[in-house]
């Protein structure tokens, strides 16, 4: 489904991504971990079109999406969230969802779908509230509901659980599992190794723009390179 091969990106003399290659299949959650500055968010930005890589290929269902505008990548079914939620603060919770193009032909069907998406993340009671009235955790749920609206095939989550209340985290994880059951491919960036080990069968560890290690949670936990560079101590 999503194939990344040899992707590189530099900012001046800093090489943010070095020949990154990875694949994600439908219904698979791949965990991406690494210290700050390892290149995780840059990789996500390159996939969703917010940044253009200097080289390499990013293919979605066999089609190269490098250089494609972010809205076109989104229309192909790639959705993402941000570490700091990027909602439209001056729009209502419902408007945050219906502002995006959708497959629904008429306004009523679109509004109905938006209400259902809000219900799934338990924000339906707040549909008429402005987005700036939501807590940080609720804003992340709003991003999740916005993702549901675009019928994604691939979802890129950037630190979805950071600063989130445990109850909201559980709800988020349930939705993530539901997406996996619907054969959505997920790339999950998370600082907390424990959460990644629970949610992903395959983990990729990034370090200084490159891939340091790749494998199952068990392999990653005991990889000496990872322990040395990232974990500090064996888990």
């Amino acid at each position, binding site marked *: 489904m999503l194939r990344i091969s040899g992707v590189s990106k530099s900012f001046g003399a800093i090489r943010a991504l070095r020949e990154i290659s990875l694949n994600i299949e439908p219904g698979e959650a791949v965990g991406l971990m690494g210290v700050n500055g390892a290149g995780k968010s840059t990789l996500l930005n390159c996939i969703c079109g917010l940044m253009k890589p200097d080289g390499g290929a990013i293919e979605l269902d066999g089609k190269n999406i490098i250089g494609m505008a972010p809205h076109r990548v989104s229309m192909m079914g790639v959705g993402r969230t941000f570490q700091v939620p990027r909602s*439209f603060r001056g729009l209502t919770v419902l408007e945050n969802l219906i*502002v995006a*193009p959708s497959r629904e032909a008429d306004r009523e069907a679109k509004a109905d779908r938006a209400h259902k998406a809000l219900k799934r993340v338990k924000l339906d009671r707040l549909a008429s509230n402005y987005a700036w009235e939501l807590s940080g955790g609720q804003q992340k749920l709003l991003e999740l509901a916005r993702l549901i609206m675009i019928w994604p095939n691939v979802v890129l989550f950037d630190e979805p659980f950071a600063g989130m209340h445990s109850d909201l985290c559980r709800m988020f994880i349930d939705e993530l599992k539901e997406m996996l059951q619907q054969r959505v491919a997920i790339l999950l960036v998370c600082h907390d190794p424990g959460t990644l080990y629970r949610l992903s069968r395959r983990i990729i560890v990034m370090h200084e723009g490159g891939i340091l290690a790749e494998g199952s949670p068990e392999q990653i936990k005991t990889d000496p390179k990872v322990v040395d560079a990232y974990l500090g101590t064996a888990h």
Partner: protein
Amino acid sequence: MATLVPNIILNAAILGVIYGFLGLSLTIVYGGMRIANLAHGDIVVAGSFITYALTAKFGYSPIAALPVAFTYLSVLGYGLYRIAGKRLQNSREPELASFLFFYGVSLMISASLLFVFDADARAISFQFRPLSFQFLGLRVPHARLVAAGVALALVPVIFWALYQTIYGKALRGAIMNRDALRIVGIDIDRLSLFAFSISFGLAGMTGVLIALVFPAFSPFSGMDYTILGFVVIVLGGLGSPLGALAGGMVFALTEQLTTLYLGQSTGLIAGFLVLVAVIVVRPAGLMGQVEWRA
């Protein structure tokens, strides 16, 4: 004196609506696209000269200039965006790049107006009958009432478009977070092209209203209106359409009442002092916090 203050307040309110209209047309582009359109005032003046040409040369009513100014200047906006808008937005410093680009556009527009209409200040010769209306001891020139009526009729349409349509919501979304808009599937380039055309068209209509309200305009008046537009949107809150109207009203009332009590030369000073005070007390502007709360 008993009717002077209400008269001044009424006339200030009319000016406030027009200042707000000026700010509204500017904030669509500056708030949403971070393009500092330094030629905005010159586009307004171009609208005034279109009114002048239609009334003086062809004998049309100034109202007929509204669709003409909107159409011509929207096309100019469309063309300019096609030429430079995308590049300006994608540059590392979009505000600085657009500032310089539109300074050049400003010079070109004012030079073109100078070439066609000469340097003399102009006024529209068309007179509404009766010249003024009197009610409850208040006296309002007919032309000012028409200008305010047009602005008050257009503002709800603009607000309906901004607050009720998907395009309008997306445009306001662009003011709040461009990246988020792009990743939910909205073609920001197309949206910007639309916004740019509308902004230029509305600036042209503002020029028609200004030709009705102010005694004269010249090819050199553009920068005054650009500065006024920026003052109004900073006062009201960058990126807030409601704030632009509020900013226009506060500025006009301050300017007119100060002129009444302290003399002509103090009006603008007081207006700018209010701007400084608002920036110190509420850096986000009068209405900025409503839409920008961090």
